């Protein structure tokens, strides 16, 4: 179902791009949600629809948006990854530490961060795929351990004094487009290709659709699961680069609760929490929707506590409306 839009050239060829077709796509509801919320925010706040503010929203979205890419892969296989925020913090802290305390070149530090993210993801993946342990427990434990390691390593201090060019990843711009936004779009594009155009992507969907059937037909389910958790670790580490660039420091306590934002983005984007169905573009829409909510409620000057209530209610409403796909 999820793939019709992308894998069905024959159906759409006849009519070209059709509104009816779009309405039937699983992206329809998230998009409608995005539009409705945007319009509401536009009414409530004059500044909302300025180019500047929209770019601002996208930049704010970028970190959770990037994390949500890996989360989409994991959730599509029917798993979950609660460790993303902690992995991001650890990757960022260690990569900053390598640059600042060990005087390594920035590029080495950044690469080391990515490696750490992937390794933690693979650790989750091995325990889930070969250890046959429930993902929610495994990644919960990894979350605790990664946080502990980050604090141990940094002694609780943020690590600052990074080479100035690192900030390019956080606040740089190419033309008027912020670098983290470009990075996010590139990662989404790669994820789209991976999910929709490669055998691996089909296997991810297949496992979420029916793991046993996929296995019996010859899909290497364990390897695919290992890979999705690895990807989740990798995207968390990419988010760490943006975060480090934005904060110009390694923050061992960054990203608390980001796993929940990422899950919310994935689910708001129409991906089934049980796996097998969903589109990566939906996740992008979901992440932007969350970002717009945060930004708009801020712009309106709504009491921050009330913002939590409103966000929770909107998520419930969106999931309720979308639950039948």
């Amino acid at each position: 179902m999820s793939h019709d839009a992308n894998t069905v050239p024959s159906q759409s060829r006849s009519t070209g791009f059709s509104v009816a077709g779009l309405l039937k796509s699983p992206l329809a509801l998230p998009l409608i949600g995005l539009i409705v919320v945007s319009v509401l925010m536009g009414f409530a706040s004059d500044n909302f629809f300025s180019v500047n503010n929209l770019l601002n929203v996208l930049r704010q979205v970028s970190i959770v948006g990037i994390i949500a890419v890996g989360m989409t892969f994991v959730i599509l296989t029917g798993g979950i990854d609660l460790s993303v925020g902690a992995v991001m913090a650890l990757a960022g802290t260690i990569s900053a530490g390598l640059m600042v305390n060990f005087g390594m070149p920035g590029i080495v530090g950044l690469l080391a961060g990515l490696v750490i993210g992937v390794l933690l993801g693979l650790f989750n993946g091995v325990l889930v795929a070969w250890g046959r342990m429930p993902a929610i427990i495994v990644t919960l434990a990894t979350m605790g351990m990664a946080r502990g390691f980050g604090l141990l390593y940094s002694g609780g201090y943020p690590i600052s004094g990074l080479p100035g060019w690192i900030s390019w990843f956080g606040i740089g711009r190419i033309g008027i487009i912020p670098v983290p936004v470009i990075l996010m779009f590139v990662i989404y594009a790669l994820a789209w290709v991976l999910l929709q155009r490669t055998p691996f992507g089909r296997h991810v969907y297949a496992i979420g659709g029916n793991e046993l059937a996929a296995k019996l037909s010859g899909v290497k389910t364990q390897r695919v699961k290992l890979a999705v958790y690895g990807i989740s670790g990798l995207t968390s580490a990419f988010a760490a680069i943006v975060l480090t660039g934005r904060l110009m420091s390694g923050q061992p306590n960054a990203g608390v609760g980001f796993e929940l934002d990422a899950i919310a983005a994935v689910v708001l984007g129409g991906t089934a929490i049980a796996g097998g169905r969903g589109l990566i573009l939906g996740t992008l829409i979901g992440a932007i929707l969350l970002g717009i909510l945060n930004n708009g409620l801020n712009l309106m000057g709504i009491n921050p506590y009330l913002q939590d209530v409103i966000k929770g209610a909107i998520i419930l409403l969106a999931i309720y409306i979308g639950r039948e796909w």
Partner: protein
Amino acid sequence: AADKLKIGMTFQELNNPYFVSMKEALQQAAASIGADVVFTDAGHDVAKQISDVEDMLQQNIDILLLNPTDTAGIESAVRMAKQQGVIVVAVDANANGPVDSFVGSKNKDAGYKSCKYLAEDLGGKGEVAILDGIPVVPILQRVEGCKEALAEYSDIKLVDTQNGRQDRSVAMGVVENMIQSHPNLNGLFSVNDGGAMGALAAIQGSGKDIKLTSVDGAPEAVDAIAKGTPFIETTAQFPRDQVRVALGMALAEHWGAQVVPKEVPIDVEVVDQKNAEGFAW
């Protein structure tokens, strides 16, 4: 080693340099007098902090230095400690109950000084905003002091107050949005340096000329001020001194002093580009 002095300190959090430097000063001080020291991290959870205190009482500490997550919530731990005859000194934030002494910054002063500096720097006019934090007494006092200072300038307009939760990344997002909704913002006061660092990133990202002041004197903040960024001032507290003085109070009590001061306010000091070089906690 049963007669060795045992000091316990419970922190509201230990992933903030402010408290980490307190911890370090305590470890040094304890080492210099040959005392044992144990410490715990409550991670902002009062219930955990009470458990932590209980666990330290099981280890027969003589002195409890208490940096409470919440003034009211920690009371039962204070009482339990006193029942066991342990000397209790609150550090940085006060605790309800029969504490022997409280050592903390003059938080209202700190807020006042930062905002006065901000107002002066803006030439006494313009739009300013406050980046608030977690509602605990010291933070509330800083905001109070700040508002008092701003009120002295009739052309300064307080246009927005938002909560950055004293967290760098949260503060950054909030300030970015603040800048969008108040394009003419001239100045910003953050209740602590953690939030200020996030705010600084947001201001620099926006390319606007917004002056920033704050409270704490964290190394990173001092660094940023020395470099001549929009971050122009932080009113420094002295976390190491707080814990040293607190330990001094506790020791005095331990040695039998009868008139240990119930409250020892620690001065705060303006750090700006002039004196930032060379300032350290």
